[in-house]
């Protein structure tokens, strides 16, 4: 009877210790998994931002006017610049539901037109930036 009692105590102690060790290790692993998820999301956003910026750059090279770019990219022309709003799935949307923003600011110097292309999230944090230019042969008026 005494022996069984002591075996039960040992068993329960072992179970408690095992649970404690498992809890500590799983909390560490959960932290690693959360970090992995965050990194994965960031690299997905960066990939999409690069693609979207490239589209913007090529649209600018084709038609370096804000209105024309807005038409090609399904965005809006505001104050001489072109803004395209994207939702979480990187589909063009309205300003209200935007998770990401593509901002193209065209400028002109002599016969050269150049643009700064910025992809940022809804909080304004920069994800990717690009500069591109195109020769039009038309002097600035």
């Amino acid at each position, binding site marked *: 009877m005494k022996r069984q009692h002591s075996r039960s105590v040992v*068993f329960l102690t072992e179970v408690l*210790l095992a649970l404690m060790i498992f809890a500590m*290790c799983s909390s560490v692993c959960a932290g690693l998994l959360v*970090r992995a998820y965050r*990194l994965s999301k960031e690299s997905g956003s960066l990939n999409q931002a690069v693609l979207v910026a490239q589209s913007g750059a090529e649209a600018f090279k084709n038609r370096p006017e804000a209105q024309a770019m807005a038409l090609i990219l399904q965005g809006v022309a505001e104050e001489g610049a072109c803004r395209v709003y994207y939702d979480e799935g990187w589909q063009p949307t309205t300003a209200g539901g935007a998770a990401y923003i593509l901002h193209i600011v065209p400028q002109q110097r002599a016969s050269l037109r150049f643009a700064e292309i910025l992809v940022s999230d809804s909080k304004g944090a920069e994800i990717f930036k690009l500069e591109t230019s195109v020769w039009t042969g038309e002097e600035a008026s």
Partner: protein
Amino acid sequence: MSQAKQGPLYGIGGVTLLTVLLVLCLTMFAVLALSSAQADRRLSEKNAKAVTAYYQADNQGVALMERAAELWPAGAARPAGEILAKELSAAFAAGYTVNAVEADEGLLLSAAIPVQENQVLRLALYLQPPEKPQRWEIRQWQVEPALQDESDAAFLPVWQP
């Protein structure tokens, strides 16, 4: 007597073994997930860097077009290819040279702008006289692998009978 021998022996230590196995599996899974995510992140950054480098080289090509067009304004005679090449190389001496030769009525410019370590943006541009409606004719605007040294061929000797 037999009562003393009762009770499963595997009870002691079995839980610890199970816990160790579970913790090992969970840790490996978490480490693999993190390692994979970090590799993805590095690849994304490399891609972003490559795209940025391409557009930087592209911008240099466009600046070359602007400068060359400025050096042959309306009403001026066609400049000599060598002089134009010298002016452009001096203006854009960032590890590449510009060649220019007279061709028909215009000038044929060629350059290989470095993009990354092993890539160049190869340009072949034909500059028309100022009175023509289309000033530039782009004959080549292509990213190519950078030429290796001649000595690299020695690494693969081929037996000839």
